[in-house]
């Protein structure tokens, strides 16, 4: 997993509520057996017009947000289907972090497992950041995970909270399966006792 330490870039505002994973990655891009080509599918129906040309009204097709590394999003972003393709698409198009008030549970875990940092802030902070990055001159921000800080062009800083366990995994780009397999003996012992106590589970 790609570590996340300190990343600078443009943040794009996308403040609608309940942006679901069907909208983030439509069904026609879910037919692969690998992760390739999902950058094309990301927000497909919003990004492209019926004739395949970029939709000029969509924020990610506008300067400077067309090279955004971060999204500032509305509540319940990533709701709906469990499809991790949504997160693979975000990564492939260069998104490293999302800033919002709330994220859907499965999407949250999927981001964590792909090294995409999710920052949860209060409503007032988020509205303010949404306004700042909606101005092309304010769109450039930097995110420092070690310090848990978002820094803005005008010198303003916003602090965010994150579980130490998540933070550590992102900073180091840890392989979750490798870490868990270090506990193989513990899992085996638990499993044996669990199946002994509940033999109908075996």
């Amino acid at each position, binding site marked *: 997993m790609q570590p996340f330490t300190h990343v600078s870039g443009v943040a794009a505002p996308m*403040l*609608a*509520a309940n942006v679901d994973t069907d909208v983030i990655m439509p*069904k026609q891009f879910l037919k692969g057996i690998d992760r390739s080509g999902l950058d094309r599918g990301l927000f497909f129906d919003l990004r492209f017009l019926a004739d395949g040309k970029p939709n000029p009204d969509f924020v990610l097709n506008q300067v400077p947000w067309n090279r955004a590394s971060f999204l500032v999003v509305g509540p319940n972003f990533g709701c709906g289907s*469990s*499809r991790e393709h949504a997160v693979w698409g975000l990564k492939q198009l260069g998104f490293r972090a999302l800033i919002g008030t709330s994220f859907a549970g499965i999407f949250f875990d999927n981001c964590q497992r792909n090294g995409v940092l999710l920052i949860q802030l209060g409503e007032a902070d988020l509205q303010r950041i949404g306004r700042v990055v909606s101005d092309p001159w304010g769109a450039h921000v930097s995110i420092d995970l070690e310090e848990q800080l978002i820094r803005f062009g005008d010198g303003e800083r916003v602090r965010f909270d994150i579980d130490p366990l998540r933070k550590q995994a992102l900073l180091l780009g840890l392989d*979750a*399966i490798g870490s868990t397999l270090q506990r193989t003996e513990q*899992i085996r012992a638990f499993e044996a006792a669990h199946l002994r106590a509940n033999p109908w589970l075996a």
Partner: protein
Amino acid sequence: MHRPRTLYEKHIDSHTVCTLDDHGHVLLYIDRQVANEYTSPQAFSGLREAGRKVWRPAATLCVVDHVNPTAPERIAAMPDAGGARQVSYFEQNCRDFGLELFDVLDKRQGIEHVVAPEQGFILPGMMVAAGDSHTTTYGALGAFGFGIGTSEIEHLLATQTLVYKKLRSMRVTVRGELGPGVTSKDIIMALIQRIGAAGATGYAIEFCGETIEALSVEARMTICNMAVEAGARGAFMAPDDKVFAYLKDKPRVPRGALWERAVASWRELRSDPGAHYDSEVELDATALQPMVTWGTSPDQAAAIDGRVPDPQEEGDPIRRQDLQRALRYMGLQPGERLTEIRISHAFIGSCTNARIEDLRDAARIVRGRRVASHVRAMIVPGSTLVREQAEAEGLAQIFRDAGFEWRQSGCSMCLAMNDDVLAPGDRCASSTNRNFEGRQGAGARTHLMSPAMVAAAAVSGHLTDVRRLSQES
């Protein structure tokens, strides 16, 4: 004295291999997994690349359901090259890793969340995770089920565990008797409408109250299934005699003395008196009416006698924009009566509402009537066994006589990953779970409702209060 615990805490405690920090993270043991062809391929590829094995192959059941066709004649071929590749890789993975597979020609094939309970693969007290958000369905059996992404599927296959953060607890108490024509679908749709699409984000919901106790196990599955549309990462009910009776003759449940021992243990699966919930919601079942959605999020719903809302009455500018966008997409006018919305399609299917009781409910409305001439109506049974049973009970004939297409099982037009796709502008009365933009096809418009309400809309040609038709029949 031990601190009183909720059933959720008991589920988690009994499956905790070890605590990982003091922020609620644990290594959680998972008893069962169900896998499908579309969210699993990259997980298997990950195992192959790392040279890892599946920890406990018997814990996983694989079912082809998302991409297969549902045409009335069952065939092995997939409708497109992508789906064919996913199914063939799925078969290869099941072979190479020693996992049991229900392929599209298997008599037991169907939608994973219909198939697993039907097979007795899910038992009370089990911890279940699967690469599909509607894994919450299993809460109706007194198990705890939750959806996971592909990376987590790989983690689970390799370790039989997940790194899990404990959720907060919400108790939803439903009291009173449901009126005629009002179903468990209306309970969950009313709850989502009330608390919002993120109302239970970060929570596990425990449903209780006399209304829930009075529901059949299948009706309870509809509620737990759709709780994820309120953001819940798990929804469950304490298992009772109805659950034990439902399970008793299923193919994979324990038998004899082991069954008796299991039931005795399952009876302990209840929240302790005085256990603490972080949030409480109460619903009065007597006040509920048949629900329909009018927007593009499951919480944009109203009772069928209502009207499309007016965005101008929304004070918050961002919410007003969301409303305007939803109405534009749905092609609806503020103030329009919901019963005047004309449909082009009717779909009864999905892991939410395509079990035998759902089909019986719909058939009661359809019997002796015809699908409106401008409506294409489809029934996609939740599983091949449900399809067989419906044929044996004469339901299939009722649907065919009325002009419904009687199809094979799969996820089908709930998410339109196969060839059952709506065209732009089509408007569908649907017994499914999501009315998102483009969910049933780019530009297509979905109205969610109960199966009986879909049947009523199909024969009327527009959204209809099912209670009017039940009075006539």
